[in-house]
């Protein structure tokens, strides 16, 4: 049993890491298209070997540690980031249930949503500690921004999810199951996907996931225009790559989370298996995220705070209240 679980974990990690490699190529390609360019196309056919070339380059690079850095924390920060990014996906069911178990998810606990939110929130430790341990002002400012950014969107994120939980509990008639991912998906089979009845919540949640994955327009912790590279300024070689991996795997995981909560998970017309529908939906959300990156400028620091507290949080609260009232009636 434990061997099987370990095997599952290894398979999941391999899938996510190759997903990261493909997503990075995909992003560079599509960002190129958005700027009248072709994107990488030199290594291999259609540039498909580009991630491999990048990986070899980054692994061969020197792993520089600043003289004043807190060595242990500096070493462990990217590991935390990557660990969190890889772990969070374990809760997400990517295919239909078989024999009472969710074989397409590594774990499907009845508080899966809660565990998922808890784990993804740990991710900010990697960024905060990495910036702090670098003993560099840019890195420190980057990690300070990461922490401040997190508290301004995480509340709205949690509150917007509550609408989905209420609806799931109402549809299943069983509040105890409402936090289980597979139940959330099953309650959307044959019903409207939650993106329709929870449209406001979906928008708030999607914006929060963009902020959670530290991507444009919420990439304040990196902010190359002001902070060199923010928290990853002092990192090089494989440790820098680990931060990049964490960012992209977070993007995949959070897109998968949005798909599970709002877009019906593995649901779809029967001519394709559920897993394929799931992958297609995740890919579309990743594309939207890249599209946003190509379009929007970075938010100013104070604007992000006021957006999080004065727009997102009230919207999420209104969404929660309206949902609760409608369900109660």
């Amino acid at each position, binding site marked *: 049993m434990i061997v099987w679980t370990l095997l599952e974990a290894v398979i999941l990690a391999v899938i996510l890491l190759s997903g990261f490699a493909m997503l990075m190529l995909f992003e560079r390609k599509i960002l*190129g*298209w*958005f*700027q*009248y360019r*072709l994107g990488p196309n030199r290594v291999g056919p259609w540039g498909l070997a580009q991630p491999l070339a990048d990986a070899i380059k980054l692994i061969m690079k020197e792993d520089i540690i600043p003289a004043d850095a807190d060595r242990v924390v500096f070493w462990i920060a990217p590991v935390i980031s990557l660990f969190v990014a890889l772990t969070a996906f374990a809760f997400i069911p990517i295919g239909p249930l078989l024999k009472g178990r969710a074989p397409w998810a590594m774990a499907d606990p009845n508080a899966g949503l809660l565990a998922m939110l808890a784990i993804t929130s740990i991710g900010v430790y990697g960024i905060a500690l990495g910036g702090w341990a670098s003993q560099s002002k840019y890195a420190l400012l980057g990690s300070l921004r990461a922490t401040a950014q997190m508290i301004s969107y995480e509340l709205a994120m949690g509150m917007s999810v509550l609408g989905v939980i209420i609806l799931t509990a109402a549809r299943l008639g069983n509040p105890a199951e409402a936090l289980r991912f597979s139940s959330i998906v099953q309650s959307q089979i044959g019903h409207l996907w939650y993106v329709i009845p929870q449209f406001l919540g979906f928008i708030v949640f999607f914006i929060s996931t963009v902020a959670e994955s530290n991507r444009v327009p919420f990439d304040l912790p990196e902010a190359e225009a002001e902070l060199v590279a923010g928290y990853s300024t002092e990192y090089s070689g494989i440790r820098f790559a680990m931060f990049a991996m964490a960012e992209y795997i977070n993007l995949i995981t959070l897109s998968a989370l949005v798909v599970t909560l709002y877009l019906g998970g593995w649901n779809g017309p029967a001519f394709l298996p559920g897993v394929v529908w799931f992958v297609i939906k995740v890919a579309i959300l990743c594309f939207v995220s890249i*599209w946003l990156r190509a*379009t*929007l400028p970075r938010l100013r620091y104070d604007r992000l705070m006021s957006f999080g507290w004065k*727009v997102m949080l009230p919207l999420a609260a209104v969404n929660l209240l309206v949902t609760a009232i409608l369900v109660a009636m």
Partner: protein
Amino acid sequence: MSLLRDIGAVLGGLKTTFKIMTRRKVTIQYPNVKKQRAARFRGRHILRKYDNGMEMCVGCELCQVACPANAINVTAAENDPKDPKSPGERYGYKYEIDYLRCIFCGLCEEACPTDCLHLTQEFELATFTRQDAIYPKERLLAKENSTFSIPLQVYPRFEGRVPLAEVLGGEEHR
């Protein structure tokens, strides 16, 4: 209301970028496809030859003087009358251009009195060592003859070095 306007602005931006994504790409796939250079593009130099194979360079060193970057180094030598390299009295014995210094301004080409020095369209001058960036005369000299023919009436008839002693009328010289 302002929130609605802001949402509209974001959606408008997304529409613009999506439209751009579907347009034709402007990238020129450089090593495979090379961009058309302008007719007067100034690239690597060439030392041209007359149609009979004689070097046009007469070793006047005006290019060296004109060069603002001190990239050109010419040492002239006198022609051997039995086997002249150029139609003039002298020829470029040593001719070096340092492409790490050259700024491709074309002043040398303008200074050249015989139209020998010419800037070609070639621009791929990357080298692995600094020494390789200094082009000796063999690399600069044209492989093929040009269509220019030696202008008559320009070069004085040159029969070889007259000993300085004769010129000075038997006076001693240092």
